[in-house]
Structure formats: structure tokens, C-alpha cells
């Protein structure tokens, strides 16, 4: 059994997205990005015109991800930071504080 976490380091990538016409467009882009196994988490914010995601640097890079965003959408101005996967798993579990929106 694979007890260890599947990743050590991931990269958090944030970039702007222009050309989104609706929240459905944003959701469709998010889905398309998540189909890439190298992209571990993703959220596209329609109102903010941006995408934030986590990717596995062993399998892809920000250039390829940005290039995968096809016209009429455009992605640019990437901002990257390295993150421990263990931290993501830990933050993903229910925390004690209330975060109900």
C-alpha cells in the first residue's frame, strides 16, 4: 500500500485569464485544467479574472499550463511559489475554525 504522500513539492501558480464571458466559462476552464493529471488543484475565478492552481513540477511547468489555455481565452502574468504537498493535505482536512461562507 502506498502510505506515503504521492507528492513532496508542488508549485502554486496564479495567472490572470481574460476572455471569460460567464461563470460557466470559468468552470469549464477549471474542469479542462483538472483533466491534466499534473494539475492537482485548480480554481478559476470568473469575477476576478484569474486562475490559481497547484501543479506537480515533475510532470509539467507553468509555460505548458499557460499554453494550454486556448483562444479565445488568454492567460498571462504567472506568479509561482513552491508548496509542500503535506501542507495542502493538512489544510484540506477539516480545521477547527468556522469557515462557513
Amino acid at each position, binding site marked *: 500500500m*502506498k502510505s506515503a504522500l504521492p507528492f513532496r513539492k508542488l508549485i502554486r501558480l496564479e495567472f490572470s485569464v481574460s476572455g471569460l464571458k460567464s461563470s460557466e466559462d470559468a468552470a469549464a476552464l477549471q474542469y479542462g485544467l483538472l483533466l491534466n493529471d499534473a494539475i492537482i488543484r485548480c480554481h478559476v475565478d470568473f469575477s476576478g479574472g484569474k486562475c490559481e492552481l497547484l501543479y506537480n513540477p515533475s510532470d509539467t511547468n507553468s509555460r505548458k499550463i499557460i499554453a494550454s489555455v486556448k483562444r479565445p481565452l488568454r492567460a498571462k502574468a504567472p506568479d509561482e511559489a513552491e508548496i509542500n504537498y503535506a501542507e*495542502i493535505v493538512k489544510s484540506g*482536512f477539516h480545521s*477547527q475554525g468556522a469557515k462557513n461562507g
Partner: protein
Amino acid sequence: MGLAEKISRVGRGYASALPVKTRSLCPECKAPLPAEIYEKSGRVRIRKTCGIHGKFDEMYWESAKFYDFARKFSARSRGIENPNVGEIINNDGTNCPFDCGICSNHHTHTGLSNIVVTNRCDMSCWYCFFYAKEGSPIYEPSLGQIRMMLRNLKNEKPVSTNAVQITGGEPCVRDDIVDIVKIAKEEGYAHVQFNTTGIAFANDAELAKKVKDAGATTVYMSFDGTSKKTNPKNHWEAPFAIENCRKAKLGIVLVPTLINSVNDNDAGNIINFALNNLDVIRAVNFQPVSFVGRMPKALREKQRITIPGAIKKIEEQTRGVIAESDWYPVPCVAPFSQFVEALTGRRQYELSIHFACGAATYLFMDGNRPVPITRFIDVEGFTEFLSEKAQELEKGKSRIATGAEMLLKLGKFIDRKKQPKRLNIGKLLFNALVRHDYKALGEIHHKTLFLGMMHFMDPYNYDQARVERCDVHYAMPDGRIIPFCAFNVLPEIYRDKVQRQYSVSWKEWQRLHPDENINYKYRRDVKRLEASEIYRNAYFGQQNFFPEGKK
């Protein structure tokens, strides 16, 4: 108390009269689409248009009349206090159903949790997509990971689930399955059940006793029919599984997947079969079919059956003993929770799922006669009464006065002439609701049969308003908790994707388990099974509880 009521992202009107706007998915590309649920010729349909793949128009429910009845029971939903809204990536539910984790928009706490403990299976059913094919990576979370997932579910606030379903693949292929049950009990789960073909329970006479001793409560056993044709999966083994569970005093829930034109005509027989084994079978939970992958429209129309259609078939096949009017949508029990919460001041389990997701009724045995609960209890009147009392309590009415009023007025909702003999349902309800004493309910289980319907969605009939309220959740080893109809309808971004991340190769699994045969597939000896007394007793000479002329 605590959280405010949740409002659906598809609008307040999900429980309004038809037509109703919602959001759905394109079955081809999974693009989120605006959709409309509408009535046509007395049936309910859902339609949507994808800019690339065109129009889709699918059956939602067979009966607009039952839809109109069911929507009255939409329940208040309040979500959870500590959703898995990531601190690193926002998943606030604006892109539902692609934001699951549980997101902060989710309406309902986990009611029934699922833990996939393996993707191995000892069968190769042609229609199944859950099991690992030869050479594929094997997903089997470690005991530590399973404990972590169970604990994560328990950390939901203010109400956490009390029930876990151990599932797969076939969970019983794991040789540490008893340890998994023990872990679930250690983590505080009162109800531990297996989602299984039952074949392991049939072939291993000791397994039922071992898991029962470890704390398991129920075997949730697939049972698609009473004949070889309607149930090729485990027709021969089911009687042996039932017999072994009977000896171990381990309850069984029969789970038929209903497919129109395939086994829909066996629904009444399945209930009859259950009534013949009431000492061990607690319930029958019908699951109208969900379609996976692409399927031609003509075939979908032929095989599609939904909750009202299944209920109608049961009415016909039981000759009206179990009528359409005996069924209620699951959220109809919300007033029970509301009342107990108002009385105790403690947040209760909330079955605030969408009214179209599930329905149920209860059969009580009056001698040899099954009697639906609705025949002697005014369900609507009683739930309205409870709701009223809950509101009074919330406004400050005395608990003692309310308890006394309950004692005085409960009887008017019960028809004692039609109530099964030796059953004092009023006393049972009073004890459960006011005294929180459930012992007596447990004592009558051998004279009752719960009948449920649970209809999981597919991309064709997907309704975001239903996903938002789902309370059947899967825990994943990456810390997220995902609703059933996101986990299984979008496996490419949830189930399969995460299982791939946490899998080991076929070869690696074999290396780690040198004593196990990874290629093992079950082969049945039909002649031997059919010759046995257990098999023959199960299918021949059964009492018919729904004979001609009976109602």
C-alpha cells in the same frame, strides 16, 4: 441555531412548481450548462444545450404529479461550520461541481460516508467501471490512511456522520477487512456497513461472525433480482450469504439496481424475498440505474427508470399492498430532527437532501400481512405537528409543556384500528422523540422492513441543485470529502484521478503481497450451489405476501 440556512447557487426556486431553472452538465464534454426542469405529458424532463454538442433532453422523473407532491418536503439546510475551503486554493463552490472538498456552499453535512478500501474485485462484471483491470494500478489505502479519512469525516462540525460504508471494488478481498471495521469503531462510528456482492460472506462461513464481533452492523448486499436472469451477479451465492449472516446475527440490506426492461419486473419479488427473510434482512434499498459513459438516446430511454417509475412498478407488482401514496421523499423526516433539536438544544442529523434524490416507506408485519406505516399513521399531519412544536420551542415554549402536549396529541395521528397488533407506535415515537430512547425501535426490527429508493445521477440528468444537498460523501486520502454524484459522475477529476495518485503498480502490489493471488477471480460451481438445500429453500416454496386479490 448556529448556521444560517443555505441558499442554492442555482436559485431559491429549486423546490418551486415546474418549470424550474438549474445547472447541469454536457454529457459529452462536462461543460456546466444552464438547464431547465419542465413538465411534458405528465412527466418531468431536464433539457440543456451545449454550444458544441447540441441539445440534450432527458427524463428526470416519470411523474410530474409525484414531483409536485415531493417538492413540498424540501427541507431547510445549513451546511457545516468547517468546510474544506482551502487556505491555498479557494474552493468556495462558485464552480460547482468542480470545487468539491466539501466547499463552503455545500448544504448538507455527511449523512452516510463512504471509504473506498480497494479497487480490486474478484469479479469482472462487464458493466462495472469501479474495479482495477489486469495490469492496472492498485489503489488500497493503508490502515493509517483509512483512519485518517474516518477521523476527517468525524471532524465535521457541528454534526458529523455516524455511519460509514466500506466499499470498493469488493472490500472483502482485503485480508485486513476485520481490522478496518475495528478502526471504524475506534473512531466512533456507530454504524459500519459493507458495500459488497456478498460472495465472500457466502463462501466464508466465519467472515460474518468476525466482522460482527469487530463491530459491523450491516451488509449492504447487491441483489438485482430473484432469478438467474435478473441477477446474474450473485443469484446463487445470496442465499448462502444470508444464511451465514443469519447465524452471525448480522443484518443485511438488499440493494437492487433497477434497470427498466431488465429487472424492473422483479421489484415486487425482491420485496417478497426480503419479507421471507425478515429475521436477517433489514431493508431493501432500490437504486434506479445511473448511466456511465456514452449511451445512445434510444437505449437510455428504454432502460431509464427513476424513483416514481420504480414506485409505480412496486405498486403494480405488490397489487397495491405498497402503493405510491405510501412513499415519502427522504427530507420529510426533517421535522423530526427539527423537533429533537429544539427540545434538546443540540444540533441533530439533518436529512436535508434534495427531494428528488430518495424516497422511503416502512413496512410493519401484522401477523403475515405487511402494512405500510402510512396506513396507520398520518405522516403529513404528524410531521406538520412536529414542525409546529419545534417552532414553538424555538420561540421559548416550555419543554415540559411541549412534552405533555406531545403525549396528549400524538394519538390523533395514529389509527389504532389499523395499527398492527401488539405494536404501540405512539409509545415508540414518544420514547424516541421526547425521551431519546431508541431501544424499543431496535426490538421491533424483526417485524419491520425499511424500503428505500436512492437515485444517483449521471451526466444526462445531472442537476446541480441535487449535488449541493447531497449527504452521501466519499472521503479521499488527500483530505477532501466529495459528494457521491461528483465523485462518481466526474471520476476523471475526483475518484480516478486521486486513486491514481495514491496507487501502486500491479507489480509493486504483487511484491508487497507475495501470498496473495492478484489475478484471482471468483468462479462459481453452479451445479453444486443449485443442488444445495439453502439455495432451494431460498427461492422455492417462499410465502407470497402479495397474492392475487390482496390489498
